[in-house]
């Protein structure tokens, strides 16, 4: 591998968070996606929703300020904020399945050029962790993914067809990886933004399916 500097986790999360629109209801998956809530929107109101029954929760709690009865979907302590509301698990997934979530941001092992993705079982294992991902993926108005562009040993995670068992079919619209921002279109992957040190050819070489270059390709946007 090169010693070029790929995009870090928080920057990937920030880039996805920049896509959130004013008033959106946002559900963040476990792992990197939860970092999206660290991004501060100066002029937008974002409503964070977690599948364990809370709408409009506040930022991550710092040590000593935790409320032991308030966690996000990743089990991390978050703070209450004015206007928060709680509900039971069936009402929470009712909300999700009915399409009230504007975007869900999920981690993934693989995303295919047709928008399929896999995020619950790794190769050679029995069972896995589905959690709320299957419900969210078929229900949210937008499904965005944040993941490393390749596996640790350099295998492509953006692929022609998923090898791992699917989470949902044809739903992913946008992917932030440590190498760039990729849109999933009807004709496949389109590279919209790219990590500073990389060329499109380098990113294509690490991608398992054709990667169209957007006409206005630009450097990965990192507002903080």
């Amino acid at each position, binding site marked *: 591998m090169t010693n070029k500097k790929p995009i870090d986790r928080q920057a990937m999360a920030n880039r996805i968070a920049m896509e959130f629109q004013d008033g959106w209801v946002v559900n963040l998956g*476990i*792992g990197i996606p939860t970092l999206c809530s660290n991004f501060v929107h100066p002029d937008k109101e974002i409503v964070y929703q*977690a*599948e*364990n*029954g*809370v709408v409009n929760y506040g930022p991550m709690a710092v040590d000593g300020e935790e*409320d*032991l*009865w*308030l*966690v996000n979907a*990743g*089990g991390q302590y978050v703070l*209450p904020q004015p206007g928060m509301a*709680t*509900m*039971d*698990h*069936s009402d*929470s*997934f*009712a909300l*999700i*399945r009915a399409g009230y979530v504007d975007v869900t941001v999920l981690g993934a092992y693989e995303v295919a050029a047709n928008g399929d993705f896999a995020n619950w*079982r*790794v190769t050679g*294992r*029995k*069972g*896995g*962790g*589905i*959690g*709320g*991902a*299957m*419900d969210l993926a*078929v*229900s949210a108005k937008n499904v965005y993914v944040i993941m490393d562009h390749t596996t640790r040993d350099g295998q492509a995670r953006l692929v022609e067809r998923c090898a791992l*068992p*699917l*989470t*949902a*079919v044809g739903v992913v619209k946008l992917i932030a990886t440590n190498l760039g921002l990729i849109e999933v279109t009807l004709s496949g992957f389109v590279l919209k933004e790219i990590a500073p040190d990389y060329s499109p050819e380098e990113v294509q070489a690490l991608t398992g399916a054709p990667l169209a270059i957007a006409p206005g390709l630009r450097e990965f946007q990192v507002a903080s």
Partner: protein
Amino acid sequence: MRNKLFDTFDEAVADIPDGASIMFSGFAGPGTPRNLIAALHRQGAKEIHAISNTPGRWGDSSLVDLSLLVQSRRVAKVSAAFTAATHPSAKLPFTELYEAGEIDAELMPQGTLAERIRAAGAGIAGFYTAAGVGTEIADGKEVRNFDGRDYLLELPLPADYAFIHAHTADDLGNLQYRLTQRNFGPIMARAAKVTIVELDEPIVLSGDIDPDAVHTPGIFVDRMIVIPADATKEVKNQR
């Protein structure tokens, strides 16, 4: 008034037979019925069918959760949204037994789990959800198209017992949960034949809870035990 208040956790779980199906509330930490789990472990019931979001060991591993029953081989089967941790590097006690074929699992989307429990407590014989369409979850299930979109038929998931952790209760068993402690509690209380509740706070008198602020009406609650003030961190989860 029927007295639903038990003095000890051991008495509250004494009659649970081998082979019982038991729902366990809780998501990550909040709502986990740690004292009831510990009591059932002492009681010794085997071949339990556990219905729970996870098969235990989620978060702080010093705290009692379903993994205590799993590791002591009291659980024959788990119906859950997870059989493995979210990060492949973290191995749950359950996962090792499961991969070794020593325990059974029914894995499903979390919303489907919640809705199947809700259906059992709502007299609904089946429902159609889009979660899992086109995935392994659809294997063996009826796929049906409504208005141009495919859905799976899912069936209710009832249980003999529900173990629930709530915040406050009155003497009739009207329950309130605090924040995300609520999660599966209200739907499990409705779906189980016998609902057993551990409580953060001492019982109040009926009339002390606003009728509009009751989360689980007392008609769904059979037994209650207040967590003693001197309970250990392992079962109380308070610092």
